[in-house]
């Protein structure tokens, strides 16, 4: 297992072989199946996590404690044979714990870099909103840059690199809510929700005596994922669909119910996520359905509801869904 980081000069390693969309479907099918052994009845959450992985984004999992946020993150990491680090965010966590620190080695009489928790292919940031804003920033900067600079040396994070952060709803005690600028760096947000009674029953059956996470075996590796990411980039997005994406993002900016609409970064990430979503369906082109399916997950955590909407007790999810519905689906090329 690699260390999960390279110096900046050593970046640009190409995948071992080229992968096709058929490979994407097959490999992702295996990963999905493996994860579903652990997380029951959460097909859409699992798929979204895989979409974010393939689209080189980061995932924010938000919900009340105990619904399986961390389990999802861990299951994803375990299913892929790559470096996985977990960072438990606490109020006293320091930025250097994330990025790493240069320590003076008495033997070599030189400073030696001790990588922090960020140096892995999949980083599980648990309860990210419990850490101080300073530490949050350290994580989020490396997420965006995909590199870490410590003491003047830049360390490139090796792809695949994905942060899966979990957070409790902001109303919970002892939390530092993520500023919108930082929420914007996550490609998608999943709200796990409670399982259905049947799924919960199954969970009691399977988890009651053993830990399925421990039994989870990796079904693929980082190099394959890198190849799949490259394959996803070739998925075609027609001008009409691009137009549709822009219209959709614009709709959030023009909505009366939103104080802050989605950013251009959101536009870009919606495009990438749509590509991955299409690829997972085995299609080499993106349809408006792909975009619409991802709209809420990709956009909802970036926007702020207006006071009116809040007073009317309208959730952001509803508002976004409405905005998506208002956009005319392109009916020509």
């Amino acid at each position, binding site marked *: 297992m690699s260390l999960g980081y390279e110096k900046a000069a050593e970046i640009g390693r190409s995948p071992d072989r080229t992968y096709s969309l058929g490979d994407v479907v097959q490999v992702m099918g295996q990963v999905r199946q493996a994860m579903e052994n652990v997380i029951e009845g959460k097909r859409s959450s699992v798929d979204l996590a895989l979409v974010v992985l393939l689209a080189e984004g980061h995932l924010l999992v938000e919900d009340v404690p105990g619904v399986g946020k961390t389990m999802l993150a861990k299951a994803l990491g375990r299913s892929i044979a790559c470096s996985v680090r977990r960072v438990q965010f606490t109020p006293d966590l320091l930025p250097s714990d994330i990025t790493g620190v240069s320590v003076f080695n008495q033997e070599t009489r030189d400073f030696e870099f001790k990588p922090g928790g960020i140096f892995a292919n999949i980083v599980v940031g648990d309860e990210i909103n419990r850490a101080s804003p300073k530490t949050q920033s350290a994580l989020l900067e490396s997420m965006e840059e995909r590199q870490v600079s410590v003491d003047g040396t830049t360390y490139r994070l090796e792809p695949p690199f994905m942060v899966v952060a979990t957070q409790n709803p902001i109303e919970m005690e002892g939390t530092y809510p993520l500023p919108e600028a930082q929420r914007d760096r996550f490609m998608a947000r999943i709200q796990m929700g409670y399982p259905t009674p049947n799924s919960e029953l199954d969970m009691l059956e399977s988890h009651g005596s053993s830990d399925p996470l421990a039994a989870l075996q990796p079904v693929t590796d980082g190099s394959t994922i890198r190849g799949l990411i490259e394959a996803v980039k070739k998925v*075609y997005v*027609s001008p*009409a*669909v691009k137009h549709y994406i822009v219209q959709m993002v614009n709709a959030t900016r023009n909505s009366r119910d939103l104080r802050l609409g989605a950013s251009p970064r959101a536009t870009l990430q919606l495009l990438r996520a749509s590509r991955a979503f299409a690829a997972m369906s085995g*299609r*080499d*082109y*993106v*349809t*408006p*359905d792909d975009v*619409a399916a991802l709209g809420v997950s990709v956009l909802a955590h970036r926007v702020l509801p207006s006071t009116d909407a809040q007073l009317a007790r309208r959730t952001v999810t509803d508002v976004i869904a*409405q905005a998506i*519905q*208002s*956009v*005319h*689906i*392109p*009916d*020509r*090329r």
Partner: protein
Amino acid sequence: MRASDRSAIAVTISVMLACFTVIPLTSDGSFIALSWVLIIAIGATSLGLRRIRLTNSAVLSAQIAILLCYSLGLSLTLSSATSDLTTRWFEHYPSLWAQGIEHMRTQASPMEPDDGVKLIFVTVIGIIMIMTDLLVSGIGRPAWAIAPPATLFLVPALGLGTDTGVISFCCIAVGYLAILVAEGLNSTARWTRGLSRDSAEGFGTAMPVVWRAAGYLAVPAIIATIVLGFALPTLSLPGFGFGNGPGGSGPLQLTDPTLDLRRNLNQPEDRDVIQYQTTGPGGVYLRLASLPQLSANGWSNVQIRLNNGQDLPAIPGLSSEPDERRTTTIRVLDFGSQYLPLPYAPRTFDAPGDWRHDANSLIVISAGQRVQDMRRLAYTVESVDTDPDSSDLNNAVAGTPADAAVTAVTPPDLPDSLIQLANRITADADTPAAKAAAIQAYLRSSQFTYSTEPLPGSGYEALQNFLLRDRRGYCEQFASAMAMMARVVGIPSRVSVGFLPGEQDQDGWRVSIRDMHAWPELYFANYGWVRFEPTPASVTGSAPAWTIQTEDSAGSDPSADASSEPTAGEESPGAVPSTGPTEQPTDLGQGAGVAWGRTLITAGIALVVLAILAAPATIRVRRRSGRLNGSGPAEEQVEAAWAEIRDTVVDYGGSWPEGSPRAIGREVADRLDAEDSESMSRVATLVERSRYARSFDHGGAMSELPMMTSEIRRGVAAPAGWRYKLMAALLPRSLFRRKQKARPK
């Protein structure tokens, strides 16, 4: 200026302009000023009340109140002021309306001044003003504002045969333009005020809807207008002028009896207008009036000296009056005229009212009572039959009637072509009666066709059109042509207007509105005025016996004898003369004089109506075959098939979901059975691929596309009820489908 002010002013101007289009209908222009006062009052009401933001119903009520008050007030000022009028206005007002309506019915345009007509015009213009204001200011549909003023325009445009002129049309167009400009300014103001984006968008999307709706209505309306314009009779009467002259004993206006002739012949529904019983054999021609004067304007009335009394003077020109009198009891039903219908030659009559008669023509004219008083009139008349014997007449010479200065004159400006024709026809005849018979035989020959749609024209031109060019016409043309040619060959003549004998039933004879007729009367010494019948047999039956020369070379049918003397009880089914034939245009196939023109027009109208009815289905079928013909690039074929499926779903009353092809495909597939739903999904995938994929790779599915499309169409149609199926075939809803616009729900 506020938007509502601008609209109200534009509407006022528009309707004021529209008033001018009615001017050709009447010779009395005073209604314009009266209407303008009303229009301005209504417009000002709209402006004022809308300024203080009253509701539509309040504004409308106020306007209607103003209209009613004005109309009532006008009726009071219009009437010759009698003292009890103010207390009896509620009787006076409707009677003024009735008078106006009657006036319009009996007069040709331009009508003589009439108070009732003025009242009607002003009131109708007021109604149009209110409607226009309601459309523009009330419900905010300025595009429709053309409709009410256009009805004003259509009345003269369709009613008058002549061109209504560019001016009229411009009045309407400029008025409409004013409304549209005002609305344009209003909407610009709306934009620049920048209240919100929504108002602007609302405007942007509402207008195409209005235009489309106007298009759907306007196109058939224009087609129908053109068709009706050709089909409807025009009132310009070739060969007959407007012979209005004052009566001898007073300023009595004589209306031209021929004006109603053609209109009545073309009445959409035939109705009985006169019933009579007569003692003599057969039915009688009921004469209303005679037109003695031939001039460049055609046949017309002259000034006549009217006498009082119900006993008429001696029959002009008749040497010995027969003793045998015919008593005819006449009851007028729904018919208004100032002439009393009488058989020729009347001796005495007992009609109630003030009647005058003319010694030369023996016509009887109402002196004083209004035209509608003729209704329900019942009277008895004694007359003698002056019909000559055929062989006697042959030896008769053309006489000189008392009014020879009018009836025996050939106008000096009569075209040579007409004179030559008359001379040529009568070249072989040696006696006046033979000449007359030759002329009649010529007109009754198969060269001439009975038609109520002759070539337009008036005066000599109409005669030339009829005799030399078109050879199509109805009784007026035949009668005036024969009378004219008789003059040319030296026989005094006049044209009489009245009714054919009508149909006999157990109670007596019934004369219908389409029995109205015109015929020539020729003057022979000792025989007086003798009726001839040049109108073809299909309408009038055989010619009178005395008008036929047995040795005549023109060869008209010599066998029949019964036209003027039909004997009751003798008739056999289809024996036209004895049953009192009617001048019905549908009376076809009874000889050469078939009204081909009318048949063609009827057929044409039927075809046009059919075409209009079949248009939606045809357009739909054409659209379908154009879509499914399998030509063009694969992408276009797929889109065409998709559009066809969409239209089919809409045609059969289904809704076409909004969304992506995949979502639509899923929803529509749910309504189909398994196999068709499989096809639907496949087509949806093809559409998706063709729209969004890098290059359209259909994987060989294109060959199955037509089959899948027709499967889906069958699947969509199968569960629909017969009503939906009928609608889908005849009036496909998809033709009226609006382009779907994204709209927040």
